[in-house]
C-alpha cells in the first residue's frame, strides 16, 4: 500500500477495532426510510447499506436532508417510516452507542485544551483525566498534531480545529463515523489539504464512514461509493463507484484519467435530482 508523505503512517488497530471479526452485519442498513418534520418531507424512500470499513459519500443539493439522514442513523432521531440498523441493531440507543458524529462546525469546547477536547468521549465515559490524555497523546503524534496538545481551540486555525474534531470522533472508538460536511467552512486550499489528511487518517484507522458533503470532488476522492440524493424530499437518485483513490495524493487523483468522467456523471445525477 502506498502512503502519501503527509498522510499518517498506516499502523492500524491501535484503537480498539470492533469490526475485526469476520461475517459482521453491515455497518449501516437502511430500508424504505422516510422522515418528515410536520408537513415538511425531508427524506422519502432512502435505501442504503454500508459495509464495515466502507466509506460512503452522500452528495445532494442544499436542504435535501443530508444532515437529517445522519441524525437518523446516529439514533439522535427516530424516522417517521422505515428501518435503520447500525451494526445489525435497530434500537435508537444501540445506534447511538455504535456511531460517532462529527458536526459541520467543530464545536470544540473553548475552555479545554486540544488534547482534552480530543479525549472528550473517554472522559464522558468516566475515564480519569490523566488516563484519557495518555490515550489521546499518541494519536496527536500519529496524525501530525504533535506540539498542539496544550493549545486552546481559539489559538488554532480552522483546519487544525477540524483535525481535533475528527480525532475526538475517532477516539469515541465507535465502528461507524458520521461526518457532516466536515470541511464546508474551510477555504479551498485548506480543504484540499484536509481531504488528504482525512484520507490518510481513514486508511490508518479503518472504519465504516458515512460522509455527507455538497462537494462532489471531495466525495469521489474520499469515498469508495457515492450516493446522490435528490432535492427535498431526498431520495437516492444515483449510486456511483468512486475510483477508490484515498491511497494516492489528491492532485494525482482529481486530475487523473477516469476521475473527470465519474465526476461528470455525479454532477449530471445531481442536476437531474435537483430539478
Amino acid at each position, binding site marked *: 500500500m502506498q502512503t502519501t508523505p503527509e498522510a499518517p503512517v498506516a499502523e492500524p488497530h491501535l484503537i480498539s477495532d470492533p469490526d475485526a471479526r469476520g461475517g459482521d452485519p453491515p455497518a449501516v442498513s437502511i430500508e424504505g426510510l422516510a422522515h418528515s418534520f410536520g408537513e415538511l418531507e425531508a427524506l422519502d424512500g432512502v435505501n442504503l447499506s454500508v459495509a464495515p470499513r466502507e466509506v460512503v459519500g452522500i452528495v445532494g443539493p442544499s436542504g435535501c436532508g443530508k444532515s437529517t439522514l445522519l*441524525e437518523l442513523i*446516529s439514533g*439522535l432521531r427516530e424516522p417517521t417510516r422505515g428501518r435503520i440498523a447500525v451494526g445489525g441493531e435497530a434500537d435508537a440507543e444501540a445506534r*447511538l*452507542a455504535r*456511531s*460517532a*458524529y462529527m*458536526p459541520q*462546525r*467543530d*464545536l*470544540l*469546547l*473553548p*475552555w479545554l485544551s486540544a488534547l482534552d477536547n480530543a479525549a*472528550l*468521549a473517554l*472522559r*464522558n*465515559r468516566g475515564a480519569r483525566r490523566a488516563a484519557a490524555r495518555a490515550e489521546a497523546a499518541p494519536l496527536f503524534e500519529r496524525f501530525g498534531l504533535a506540539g498542539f496538545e496544550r493549545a486552546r481551540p*481559539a489559538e488554532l486555525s480552522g483546519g487544525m480545529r477540524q483535525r481535533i474534531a475528527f480525532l*475526538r470522533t475517532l477516539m*469515541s472508538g465507535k465502528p461507524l463515523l458520521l461526518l457532516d460536511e466536515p470541511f464546508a467552512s474551510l477555504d479551498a486550499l485548506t480543504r484540499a489539504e484536509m481531504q488528504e489528511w482525512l484520507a490518510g487518517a481513514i486508511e490508518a484507522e479503518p472504519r465504516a464512514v458515512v460522509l455527507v458533503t455538497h462537494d462532489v470532488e471531495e466525495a469521489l476522492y474520499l469515498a469508495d461509493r457515492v450516493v446522490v440524493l435528490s432535492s427535498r424530499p431526498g431520495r437516492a437518485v444515483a449510486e456511483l463507484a468512486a475510483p477508490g483513490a484515498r491511497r494516492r495524493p489528491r492532485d494525482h487523483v482529481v486530475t487523473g484519467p477516469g476521475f473527470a468522467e465519474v465526476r461528470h456523471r455525479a454532477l449530471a445525477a445531481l442536476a437531474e435530482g435537483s430539478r
Partner: protein
Amino acid sequence: MSRSSGSRRVLAPAAVLVAALGAWQLAASWGVLADALSIEPFLIPSPSEIAEALWADRELLAEDAWVTLREVVLGFGLALVAGLGFATLLHLSDTLRRALYPLLVASQTVPIIVIAPILVVWFGFGIGPKLAIVALICFFPITVNTLDGLRSVDPDLVKLMRTLDATRWRTFTRAEAPSALPYAFSGAKIAIAVAVIGAVFGEWSGSDAGLGHLMLQASAQLETPLLFAAVVVLSAGAVALFGALSLLERRVAWWGIGNDG
C-alpha cells in the same frame, strides 16, 4: 490591548474626575453652590473637607464599613449559592421551569426594598434582615442570567455530547455549565452592585451599625463632611467588589459569552 490604549482608557475618565473635583472645590470654597441653593455654606463640604473627615473619622468609618461589607458579601454569597442551584434545577427540569419561571419574573414586581421594614420586624436589628434583603435583591439577576446562559447553549453541542456517550449530568457539568459560566458572572456583577444598595437600605430600616447607619446619624447631626465621607467609602467599596468579580471572571470564565463551541 496595547499599553498605550490601556492607559488612555484610565486617563480620560481620571482627567474628568479631577476636573470635576477641582470645580467642586472652587464652587464650595467661594460659596457659589450654597448661594444658589440658599443654604448655609457648611452644608456643602468641599472635597478637601471630605478628605479631612475621611482621615479624622477613619476608625469609625472602618468599623462601620466592615459591618456593611459583611452584610454585602454574606448576603451575596447566600444569593449566589441559592441562585446557581435554582437555575440548575429549573434548567434540568422542564416541569419546574414551566411552573416557577413565570412566578420568578413576576416576583420582581414586588419592590424588595419596601419589605425591608417587615424583615426588620421579623429578624430584629442584627445582621439577619440585612442578609435577607441583600440576598433577595441579588437572587434574581444571578438566577435569571445563569438560566439564560444554560438555555442558550448550542443544541448541536448537546447532541454532540450525546453521541460522545455523555450522560445528562455529564453533558451538564462538562458542556452546559461552563458555557453558562460567563452569563452567571454577568448576573453576579449586576448583583454585587445592587447588593450595596440593599445593605444600606436594610440599615436604614433599623440598625445600630454600618455605613448606612452612620449616614443617618451624620445627616441628623448635620455633619455633612462625615456624611459625604461615608458615601465615598461605600462607593469605593462597591467599585472594589465589582472590580474583584471582573478580575475573577477574567481568570475563570475567560472564554466569554456565546463561545460554547
